[in-house]
């Protein structure tokens, strides 16, 4: 919902053209932990990477965008609409609009790889069994996992599980992907495949917000970078600005040590 007061102060700001928007969002745990106030916007087709030292608020940013944290102040907008508060509406948005892969996300251990992907399709998006299976197999194929469709999670390596978790998320066809350290267990070949997959997702109009410590990956993939320090955005811009010519001393140090 557009607020008249905000319209008058931001005449050129068209909220509906953004997939995700944070307006002065604050979510603090202690005085020195958490996030905010932060303001940024993510357009359709944009790949944004969030970087920063440990405890800088990256995960809180992802969790707040994924509607797992309620901001103390400020506004979160998803596709121009204010953040819903009713549980049913949050579930609907999470299933259809936002796809989130948390840090250390795991497959559900009691289900095979294929069932892990089919379950949310059946339960959250009400797919028929055959259509869920078709989508699941398509995703398994694209992540090189189809021959292990019947494997149980404890039979898979960390890298395979990480690919499968991403496949589970992409199978829901979200418009916004929120990814927290999803390449930590991937080898270079699969990191590249995932990168290509995310870029093609963005070319089709999807938006990606990804937390990563791999600066090389971040530079090659992103068209926008947010650098966080102590919960605040210290610098944001295209990779050429943020990574190649950083102005803030903290960011300079961060890049040198990376």
């Amino acid at each position, binding site marked *: 919902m557009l607020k008249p007061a905000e319209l008058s102060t931001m005449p050129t700001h068209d909220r509906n053209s953004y997939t995700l928007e944070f307006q002065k969002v604050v979510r603090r745990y202690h005085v020195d932990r958490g996030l905010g106030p932060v303001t940024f916007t993510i357009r359709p087709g944009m790949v944004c990477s969030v970087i920063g030292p440990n405890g800088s608020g990256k995960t809180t940013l992802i969790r707040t965008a*994924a509607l*797992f944290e309620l901001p103390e102040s400020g506004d979160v907008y998803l596709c121009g609409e204010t953040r819903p508060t009713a*549980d*049913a509406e949050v*579930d*609907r*948005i*999470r*299933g*259809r609009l*936002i*796809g*989130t*892969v*948390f840090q*250390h*996300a*795991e497959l*559900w*251990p*009691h289900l095979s790889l294929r069932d892990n992907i089919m*379950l*949310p399709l059946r*339960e*959250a*998006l009400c797919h028929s069994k055959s259509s869920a299976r078709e989508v699941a197999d398509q995703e398994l194929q694209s992540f090189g996992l189809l021959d292990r469709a019947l494997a149980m*999670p*404890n*039979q898979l390596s960390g890298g395979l599980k990480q690919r499968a*978790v991403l496949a*589970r*998320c992409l199978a*829901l066809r979200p418009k916004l992907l929120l990814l927290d350290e999803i390449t930590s267990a991937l080898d270079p070949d699969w990191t590249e495949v995932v990168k290509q997959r995310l870029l093609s997702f963005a070319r089709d109009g999807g938006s990606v917000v990804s937390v990563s410590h791999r600066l090389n990956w971040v530079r090659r993939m992103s068209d926008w970078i947010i650098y966080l320090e102590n919960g605040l955005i210290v610098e944001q811009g295209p990779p050429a600005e943020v990574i190649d010519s950083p102005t803030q001393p903290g960011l300079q140090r961060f890049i040198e040590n990376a």
Partner: protein
Amino acid sequence: MYRWDFGWVWTFRAALLDALWVTIELNLLILVFGTIAGFLVWRARASRFRLLRLSAVAYIDLLRTLPVLVLLVWFFYCVPILLGGIRLGPMVSAVIVLSLNLSAFTAEIIRAGIDGVPVGHVESARACGLSAHQTLRRIVLPIAFRNMVPPMVGQYINSVKLSVLASIIAVPELLQKTVDISSRVYRPLEFYTVLAALFLLLLLPGTILSRRLEAGEHNRRLTTSG
């Protein structure tokens, strides 16, 4: 030198088999009612209503603290007085008291099983758009169930062993019959030996199953975390 003579036991085999059947019947009823009641107590314990939650905690603490024998005798003799003379009978009283006892432990096992489900699995489910109810039904309970089975089997075995206490209020189960017959024929050693053997036969498969399940669970955890 004591001369063993199991002939007496053979003579009373029909009575002992009847008693064995009563023991099995008693325990099946306790298992069913105790488990259902345990599930209900757990639901109350996990309720959003404070009063319900506190009542469930009080119930669990009370039943885990009171000796089963004391509760059994109290229930059998005092409840009819409190109910204005309505007698429940030994079998019904034993089923109620032992089910109540089992339910308190079952509720705690269910709670521990559910608390043992990593929060990451729940958040992944919610992140995929599953509602709280769908997450409980499709993710939390199936994972928790695997955590619960080994301690639950152990608790059932315990409960079967406790069921001999029903003899004190004259439920005609194995111990009660053994005491009764052996005191008549003065052959306690033979009868108690057979009693022990019968319980061994009854519970050994469960004990082995429990150990296998625990080993399986241990191996699964190692491979999952590896």
